[in-house]
């Protein structure tokens, strides 16, 4: 199972959605994923992949595509400073 399939599986499970609803190009907004759901999904991803996702990167994850891209890079141990930079410029997460 590749990263994309795994991400889709985890989002489907955590959101209690029927199989097939979550697609590679789904956005969190389309899936009804709010900010609290978002941190829950991050928690599940961190547990599954045994990684830490920095808050700054996490804030930029608003779609399946973004999650997969960010995660792939974190998993490959690649430099993610540009993602961090991008997140800084974007809208902060709406968690309170």
């Amino acid at each position, binding site marked *: 199972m590749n990263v994309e399939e795994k991400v889709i599986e985890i989002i489907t499970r955590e959101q*209690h959605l029927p199989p097939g609803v979550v697609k590679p190009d789904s956005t969190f907004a389309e899936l009804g994923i709010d900010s609290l759901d978002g941190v829950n999904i991050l928690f599940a991803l961190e547990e599954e992949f045994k990684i830490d996702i920095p808050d700054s990167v996490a804030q930029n994850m608003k779609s399946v595509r973004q999650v997969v891209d960010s995660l792939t890079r974190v998993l490959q141990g690649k430099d993610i400073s540009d993602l961090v930079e991008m997140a800084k410029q974007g809208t902060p997460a709406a968690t309170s």
Partner: protein
Amino acid sequence: MRRVVITGLGVFASLGRDTKTFFSNLVAGRSGVRRITQFDPSGLSVQIAAEVPDYNPADYFPPKRLDLLDRFTQFALLAAKEALESSGLDLAQEDTTRFGVVMGSGMGGAQTLDSGYWNLYGKQLTRLHPFTIPKIMHNAATSQICMEYGLRGPASATVTACSSAGHAIGEAFHLIKYGLADLMLAGGSEAPITYGMLRCWESVRVMATGDGDASRACRPFSADRQGMVIGEGAGVLLLEELEHARRRGAKVYGELAGFGMSSDAGHITQPTVEGPARAIRMALEEAGVSPEEVDYINAHGTGTRLNDPTETQVIKAVFGDHARKLAISSTKSMHGHVMGATGAVELVATVKAIEQGVIPPTANYTQPDPECDLDYVPNQARQAAVRVAVSNSFAFGGLNAVLLVRAL
């Protein structure tokens, strides 16, 4: 002056998942106390509790909703549902900014906290589930009820150990009486049966073990009493301004006419006579009821060495000669001590006693105690007209809440 009546009742507890079942079990003298099933209690000195038997949350809540509900909030929602549905209220016709919620809980999301600590200290995990905070917070029950029904009026939560629900109902009563709301769902919920909580209670040395007979473990006011038994569940009442209830032709169970609250300012666990007595007098005074008019007291009656004689003295201090004429019972003998929910569960029992003209007994009463020499309605329910009834909650910490209900 605005008057407040009770127009809806809800219970979800060991002795019943609805008010009718709960009260008929009380009248039958049945006990909800048995060996703990939520975890293996083998290593504990106290292995019994009044659990909601065979409770399966998935029977009541969809998975996505359940993710955010600790057991104590589940119970609160289930009791609130019955209270609201039994009232016949049509929410679409109500101004929801005038409809609020106050729920009490002594321990909040104890199960979520317990499993979180196990993950942290036991399993040495460094990450805890992000839903932990929204599940453990004491106001989760109030907030989830508000969200479920779109209730946008005054809402808060009370935390005063075993008086939590008494205070919640009293505060909700005053919010309506003094014009801040027209409708309130009020009560308490508790799900304290965890390994960690039981270990804590064990160490206080106030718990009954039952000596192999769980159903008889809690014996309030009886000379051979062993102590208290922990219970779980929720009670919720719908409080409504009298004219509002009359306008919609609501069934009125009784008037919530008096609330007394006081602090012992004495000892963190030992009750005084003066503090609780003052709370009862306050409730009588607010209701404009003389002590002689009270027919029934649903006692705090925990079954501990300290509570029962002290509560007996309190009743004598307030009621004088009438203390020997009124009926007193502790329904905790059957539903256990439901902690922060107990005042609500017991007020439902009290209201049903008024409605049905039946006083539930103090179960498991075997031996008279010279220090507890009043009429505790031992073992057998009693047919009796109840016009005025008082429900006592005296908490660890010396914070007392007394509610007075009058037949209308």
